[in-house]
């Protein structure tokens, strides 16, 4: 199990083992448990309180900005990885450092805008 493909095959095998363990646990449960459903038992469990309304509710539009901030930071972080591997290598140096901080600076402007428009405040 060496080399590039071998090591990823190992990852796949690990995923498969995980899936088998979960499936086997659920299957064993299904085999062992008694099944006598009543309408009360089939309602959603909400910490002992009777559920009110439906499970789906429209969420507030303000959460969209938080999700989008997450997307921005994910893209941001992803570019930090290749940058971190090369910026100290010979032939890169100061220029690469400045380039990355320019990139971060533009995104920081967005965060600054969000902060000034009080999007980050909860109330």
């Amino acid at each position, binding site marked *: 199990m060496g080399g*590039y493909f071998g090591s990823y095959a190992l990852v796949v095998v690990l995923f498969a083992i995980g899936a088998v363990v979960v499936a086997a646990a659920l299957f064993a449960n299904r085999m062992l448990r008694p099944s006598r459903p009543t309408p009360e038992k089939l309602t959603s469990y909400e910490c002992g309180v009777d559920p009110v309304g439906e499970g*789906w509710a429209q969420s507030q539009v303000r959460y969209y900005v938080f999700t989008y901030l*997450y997307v921005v930071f*994910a893209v941001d972080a992803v570019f930090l990885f290749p940058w971190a591997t090369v910026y100290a290598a010979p032939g890169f140096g100061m220029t690469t450092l400045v*380039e990355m901080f320019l*990139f971060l600076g533009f995104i920081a402007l967005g965060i600054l805008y969000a902060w000034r*428009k009080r999007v980050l405040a909860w109330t």
Partner: protein
Amino acid sequence: MTGAVPSYLSPTGQEIVFLLLGAVTVGSALLVVTTRQLVHAALWLVLCFGALAGCYLVLTAEFVAWVQVLIYVGAVVALLLFGIMLTRAPIGRSADLDSGNRVVAAIVALATAAVLVTVVIDGFRTAYADLTPGRGAASEVGSSLFRNWVLPFEALSVLLLAALIGAIVLSRTDIRGR
């Protein structure tokens, strides 16, 4: 980049895995557009993106594969689910998902596919790329990014900034246009 072309009649293990992953990608992509439940469409999209990441892994584009998982499977699908929860709730089986423009949409999709396939076939013809592991690692991507593709990289930050400000303006009802 190109090497001797081995026979296609005796595919290697990687080629078989690649074809299987491609079939999963196409199948789940079809389910995304045909399912009647919007949330299921988003979840099929997870499978589609995941299988695509697997394709990238088989092509030894390691870094791109994990970017696909992090950005698309993680962030973009979360964004889509939030979009669904914000606009269409309570949600379930919806009958009005079909567009009246089915034929036009199919023609546009087929034309796009034809253009892409033609470009790829015309650009590469019988070129055979030898897959050497390590060419798609983060350091290789980094050196090519910061040596040759700095301008697109910086342009991306402006795009992200514009989209972020747009999302803020759209989601705040108290920021009014003039």
